[in-house]
């Protein structure tokens, strides 16, 4: 029987500062060629899946994989909010972490081929979406339009700034960025992410939408998408719950009869609608 609580040892290969409180960490196995992942398929993990990362002595917390399985590097992007996250922020290149996973369902990558894909992200919520965006960009011809709506509190809080520039330059990506509060230099949209909906035209029959951001943002974005005419089963949101085990045992992540760590973290609006007002 596999020990589902025992992490594999890994180390920090690179640290990249994104904002004043967000860093992206590239992870590598402590020894040997690669991490042994639970998935047996050709792909290492599915975008949208998460890892349980340990800082031994402080604890363990779940983080979405922010890199794409089509890329060589395994990355997580972390906002410093508490004990484990700040311990991670204090780690330097070469230091040791523990890793379990990947866990969770991930995005429905098989169902979305041939469609327009609309991403709506808020703050650090761009992390899991980035995994899917880069996955799609590496298989660009399998998809139609790619629209990314991204919002943050202020220009400094935008994550993956270099990558955003890269996406902006591409003709086959429509990227719109907004901030709640601009500064002197900010020339783009000011307002919450839903204000970007007016600026795009989406054919709801041809589109799938993926939403990730702070809990307060999600209901408003879903409402906007429903208004545009997207069907409930084409709208997906990443739900964040307090998680401990990541493998459907500790109970913490439950929403109604669902376990966010097993049945999620990616849920269609059709699924969450029925889960009472809890989400």
């Amino acid at each position, binding site marked *: 029987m596999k020990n589902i*609580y025992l992490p594999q040892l890994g180390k920090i290969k690179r640290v990249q500062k994104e904002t004043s409180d967000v860093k992206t960490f590239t992870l590598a196995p402590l020894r040997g060629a690669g991490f042994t992942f639970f998935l047996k398929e050709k792909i290492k993990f599915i975008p949208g899946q998460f890892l349980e990362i340990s800082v031994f002595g402080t604890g363990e917390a779940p983080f979405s994989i922010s890199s794409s399985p089509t890329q060589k590097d395994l990355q997580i992007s972390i906002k410093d909010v508490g004990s484990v996250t700040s311990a991670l922020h204090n780690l330097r290149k070469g230091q*040791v972490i523990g890793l379990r996973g990947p866990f969770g369902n991930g995005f429905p990558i098989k169902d979305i081929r041939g469609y327009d894909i609309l991403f709506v992200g808020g703050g650090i919520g761009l992390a899991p979406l980035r995994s899917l965006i880069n996955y799609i960009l590496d298989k660009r011809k399998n998809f139609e339009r790619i629209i990314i709506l991204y919002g943050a509190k202020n220009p400094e809080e935008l994550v993956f700034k270099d990558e955003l520039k890269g996406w902006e330059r591409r003709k086959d990506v429509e990227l719109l960025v907004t901030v709640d509060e601009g500064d002197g230099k900010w020339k783009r949209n000011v307002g919450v992410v839903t204000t970007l909906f007016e600026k795009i035209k989406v054919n709801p029959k041809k589109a799938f939408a993926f939403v990730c951001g702070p*809990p307060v943002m999600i209901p408003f974005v879903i409402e906007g998408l429903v208004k545009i005419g997207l069907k409930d089963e084409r709208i997906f949101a990443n739900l964040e*719950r307090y998680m401990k085990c990541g493998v459907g045992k500790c109970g913490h992540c439950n929403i109604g009869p669902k376990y966010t760590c097993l049945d999620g973290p990616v849920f269609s609006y059709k699924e969450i609608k029925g889960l009472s007002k809890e989400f």
Partner: protein
Amino acid sequence: MRDWILYKEHTFPLIRRLNKHFEIIAPVEGKGGDIVFDPITSEHDVVLDFTNTIMPPKRFFFPQFETLFSWKGKEFTLAPPRGAGLTVPLKTKRRIIFGIRPCDFSGILFLDGYYALAYEDNYYFTRRNNTLFILLGCNEPQEHCFCLSAGTGPFLKRGFDIQLTDLKDRYYVQIGSRKGKELIERYDYFFRPASREEKEENIQTVREAERKFKEEVDFDLVAKKMENEEVPESLWQELAVRCQNCGGCSYVCPTCFCFNLIDRVTGKEEGKRMRTWDSCTFSGYTRMAGGYNPREEKKDRVKRRFYHKLVYEPQQFGMHGCVGCGRCVTTCLGNINMPRVMHEIMK
């Protein structure tokens, strides 16, 4: 399978024999005079005329505090890494739980189902698979017992290794598994085959016990009303006022499985990851980064507990999250308890 008889005067000699090869966990008198499950040192510790123990034997499979692994060495603070690693302390002896009640054993069957969903919990199953269960059915249900309504007692039809029925000077012995059969065969000199009259006596004893229940609830009706949202929010509101957030109901419950994971630093470059019991009635149970808490209100947490046990778990894997042991009745300071809530819903 053939049924057997064990004379009561042979019970202690049998336990002494078994204790040579197994760790025996049985009801014993604890320090405060309560009857508790504990490993025995001698067969004379065993108390078999008990009603039920204050805690179910859940902790022998899912301990209240448990080390999942420990670490040691420079590896965790410095590069480059060398040598050290993680050690898992999981070791178990072959064990027998002697005298477990059918409701509590049903709690184990429940955990078997839950801990095998999606991923197997290796800590639980390593202990579980190393344990043989000898059940003692209940001739005298207690005031708050409602296992009959839950379908988990006072005697079981299957699932156990061995089940004993008290026939005054003898035990009627039923075998329910290969492990149970092998044990009886190995110690066959303690047993003799049951006669036809004894078989009948056993059936009568079971019937009589079933007639003694004072508490009766309708699980299906309650689940249906809850699913159809026919339960007024005012009920949860009223219960919330009484709930003291103590978590006692989860700790005494044979089926509650929730836990927390924490790290303990035990020395320089040394520490361990532990898991400890947790409860959905605690406000920190769902609180997330940034302070957002999907079940901030006590009402929602109390409601969660009952929905989880009565609606979600049957949906998820076909078993009620309540085995009718009645422990939460005597434990709750605010007098919130399973049968009472069920009666309120049934009204």
